């Protein structure tokens, strides 16, 4: 359960979000909007990467301003560019990095890493350098490193923008299988077709909030 109440965000001189109120309970929530509309900032509010200048953001009842660390443990975040998200030289090391503070034994870390890599088809690449993976595989690795922590909520910022059609379809199919609540910011409208709810952001405000067909229709008209 994500709750935003009259949220304003200013970055430098620019007012990026001006009075956003919403409460997101659906399992699949999409966010669309033009470049610079404030949708990426909205995504970053959910795990406390960006804090509101005024208003409040609460995730499962916790205020991001006071409990950012605890919230981040329950909210996974997938960025657009997997190269900026993979921090370790090899595939298995990167997934293990996520588990560093779980207090697990080395065997248990290895077991969980192997399990998740195999589930997403990266098992044979475990000891390969991350930069030998294809773009789609890198995005899968970034996802593995997030999912290995079993977050309750998953936020994705344009996860398919840098992927080719085949890989973005793969990510879309994968999205459907995830048990978590998922909030996806994207330009990839077909991705949102079977979502439960779509928000349209323009100039820092929510201008439409409906089921996908209606919201996307509004967005297309706006962009015409």
């Amino acid at each position, binding site marked *: 359960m994500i709750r935003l109440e009259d949220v304003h965000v200013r970055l430098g001189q620019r007012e990026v979000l001006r009075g956003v109120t919403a409460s997101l309970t659906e399992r699949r929530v999409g966010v669309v909007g033009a470049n610079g509309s404030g949708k990426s900032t909205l995504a970053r509010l959910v*795990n406390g*990467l960006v804090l509101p200048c005024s208003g409040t953001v609460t995730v499962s009842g916790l205020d991001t301003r006071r409990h*950012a*660390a605890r919230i*981040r*443990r329950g909210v996974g*975040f997938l*960025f657009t*560019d997997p*190269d*900026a*998200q*993979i*921090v*370790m*030289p*090899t595939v298995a*090391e990167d997934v293990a*990095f*996520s588990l*560093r*503070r779980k207090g697990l034994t080395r065997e248990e870390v290895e077991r969980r890493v192997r399990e998740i890599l195999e589930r997403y088809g990266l098992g044979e690449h475990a000891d390969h*350098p*991350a*930069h*030998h993976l294809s773009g789609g595989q890198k995005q899968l690795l970034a996802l593995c*490193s997030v999912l290995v922590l079993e977050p309750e909520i998953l936020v994705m910022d344009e996860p398919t923008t840098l992927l080719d059609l085949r890989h973005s379809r793969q990510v879309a199919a994968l999205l459907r299988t995830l048990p978590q609540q998922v909030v996806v910011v994207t330009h990839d409208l077909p991705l949102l077709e079977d979502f439960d709810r779509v928000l349209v952001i323009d100039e820092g405000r929510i201008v439409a909030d409906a089921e996908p067909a209606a919201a996307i229709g509004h967005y297309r008209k706006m962009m015409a």
Partner: protein
Amino acid sequence: MSGLTGAYVPGDSLLHRLPAGAKLAGLAASCTAFLLLRSPAALAGAAAAVVLLYVVSGVGVAAAWAQVRPVRWFAVALFGVQLVFADLPTAASSTLRVVLAVALAGLVTLTTRTSALMVCLERCLAPARFAGLDPFRLSLLLSLTLRSVPVIADLVSRVREAQRARGVERSPRAFAVPLVVGALRHADALGEALAARGLDD
């Protein structure tokens, strides 16, 4: 590790089995000794000792040459200069001193795994924790740098392609500014991802 590898030659010699810290200490002591040895005879003895160590290590001639190769022209130039300004014994001993120090250091590199050296060097930097840099962050810095080398190398080729497309191939500024801006953008995205993965929590 990443696709980058060191010059380590696998083996099971006495030198391979010595702990990395002992080898580093021995190297530091030997290099100091080389500087203090003045007579050509003493240096010749040291040279024999280094050659013997190479034989014991069993790394092979090619690996040994690869370590000394980078200083070959410097050694030739130094020998020439010393011959002009001083005499043959001085020229021989100062050139030998340079080659010996590099060769012995190379031997440590050849007989010690990169990871073992890294652990050892990390330990040497442990006092950095008083400046807010705990051992975990220090080792993260090293891994993250290894991870970033291929990413930045890709960035270089992308920027160069863009530069070629715009026909400004010759201008170093038109290449370097987008490269550095791109590197910074990447660094800041990486910092955000590290924060999202709980590094600051």
